[in-house]
C-alpha cells in the first residue's frame, strides 16, 4: 500500500465530509438584542413561501446540534456572555452568520450605552447580511454565500473566542441552562 492510495482515500473522505457539510447546515438562532424584525424574517424563511428545508437547513434548538449560528441584534451587554456561551457550546466546525444592520455595525443603536454594536468584535463572523431587516430571500442568499465559500474550500478554522469571561465558567457549573 503506497501513500498515494491512502491520500486518495483521505481525499475521498474529505470530499464526502465537505459535501455533507454543504448540504446539511443545521442552524441555531440567537437574538442578542435585536428588535425582532430579523428574527421574524429568519422564522419566515422556514415557512412555505421560502422553505429552507429544501436546502437542508433545519433550525435546531440545542447549540450542540447546530453548525451555523445565525445571530441578530446589536450585541447587548446582558446578552454578551450568553452569546459567547452558545458559540462555545457548538461543536466544531461552526460558522456564524450576522443578520441585519444591527449585528453588522449597530445600525440605529450605534452609540447606545448598552450595546457593543458589532458582532465581529465578539465572535468571528463568516457571512454578513445587511438590511433592516433583510428580506427572507436576502437571508437565504446569505446562507448560499456561506455554502459557496465552503464549496470553494474555505477551511473551517478553529477559532478561539477573544473575550475571556471568567465568570462564565462559574456560572455554567451552577446554572446549567442551555
Amino acid at each position, binding site marked *: 500500500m503506497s501513500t498515494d492510495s491512502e491520500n486518495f482515500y483521505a481525499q475521498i473522505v474529505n470530499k464526502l465530509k465537505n459535501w455533507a457539510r454543504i448540504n*446539511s447546515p443545521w442552524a441555531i438562532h440567537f437574538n442578542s438584542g435585536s428588535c425582532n424584525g430579523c428574527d421574524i424574517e429568519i422564522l419566515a424563511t422556514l415557512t412555505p413561501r421560502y*422553505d429552507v*428545508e429544501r436546502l437542508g437547513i433545519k433550525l435546531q434548538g*440545542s447549540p*450542540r446540534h447546530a453548525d451555523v449560528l445565525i445571530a441578530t441584534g446589536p450585541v447587548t451587554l446582558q446578552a454578551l456572555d450568553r452569546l459567547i456561551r452558545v458559540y462555545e*457550546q457548538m461543536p*466544531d*466546525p461552526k460558522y456564524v452568520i450576522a443578520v441585519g444592520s444591527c449585528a453588522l455595525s449597530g445600525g440605529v443603536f450605534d452609540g447606545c450605552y448598552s450595546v457593543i454594536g458589532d458582532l465581529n468584535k465578539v465572535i468571528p463572523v463568516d457571512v454578513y447580511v445587511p438590511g433592516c431587516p433583510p428580506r427572507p430571500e436576502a437571508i437565504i442568499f446569505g446562507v448560499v454565500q456561506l455554502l459557496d465559500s465552503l464549496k470553494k474550500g474555505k477551511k473551517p478554522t478553529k477559532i478561539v473566542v477573544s473575550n475571556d469571561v471568567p465568570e462564565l465558567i462559574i456560572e455554567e457549573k451552577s446554572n446549567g441552562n442551555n
Partner: protein
Amino acid sequence: MNLSLHPLILLLIFPGGLFLMNIGLLYEWADRKLVARFQSRVGPRWFQPFADTIKLLAKEEIIPNGVHKIMFLALPIIALTGALTAAQYIPMFGFEASFSFEGDLIVVLYMLSMMTLSIGLAGANTLSRFTIIGATRALTQMFSYEAPFLLALLSPAIAAGTWNIGKINTFTGENIWLILAQPIGFIVAVVGLMGKLELPPFDAPEAETEIVAGALTEYSGRGLALFHIGKNVELVIGLTLVVIFYLGGIANPIEFILKSAGLFLVVTALQSMFARLRIDQTVGLWWRLGALMGLLQLLAIIFGRYLGEILR
C-alpha cells in the same frame, strides 16, 4: 422467498446493518418530505438524511462535564444494536426472516424498547435539566404506549395461533386483511407505533418548544447520528410489523413497498393533523382508551376463536 446467505452477511449487509440503515434514512426522507408536502412546502431533497448523518458523524463530539463517559458513548451504540437485532427476526422486504423461533414477536418488541430505554438513560446521564425532563417524559410515555401496542399486536398473533412473526406473515397473507377483521386493533397499533417512535403529536419527550431537544439535548456529532439512525431503523421495523400484521402480510418486495407507502401516507397525515399532546394527556389517552380498546379487541378474538371451536 427464502434467503440462504452466510449469517455474517445477513447480519451486516442484508437485511441487517448496512441495508437497513440506508432504508431507514430513506424512510426519514419520505417522512419529512410527506410532512412538508402536507404543509404545502417543497421539503428536503432525497439525499438530505444521508448528508445529515455523514455531517454529524464527521463533527466534533463534545462530552459534557459530569457525565458517565462510558455510558455516554455506549448508549447510542446499544440503542442502534437493539434496533438492528430486532430487524433480524422480521421478514424484511418480502424475504423470509434471517432468524426465527417460536415466540420471536416478544423478543422484537423488547428489542425495540431498548431504544427508549437508552434514550431515557442518556437523558438521566447528563446534568442538563432539559435532558432529565426529556428522559422522564420518554420513560413515562414508554410505560403508557407499551401495553396497548403489545395488545394490538397480540390479537393477530392469537388469531394466527402462533407467536412467530414469519408464520403470522403467512397466516395474514392467506386470510382476509386483518385491518377489516380487526379495525380497532389496527388503529391502536398505528397510534401506538407513533407513540413508540415519538412522532408528533406524541413528541412531548422531545418537544422543541418546551425542553429544547429532550434527552438528546447534550448529544452532538456521532452519538446524535447513531440515535438518529436507530430511530429510523425503528421506524422501518415498526411500519413493517404493522404491515405484516394488519395489511395482509408481505410476500414479495413490490407488495412490501406499496403497502409500506400506503401506511406511511396515513402515519404522516396523522403527524401533521394534530397539536402536540401533553404528556399527561398522552398517558391518559393510552390507558383510558388505547389499552381498553386493545383489550376489547383481544377479548373479542379469544371469544371468537372459542366460539369457532365450539361450533366446529
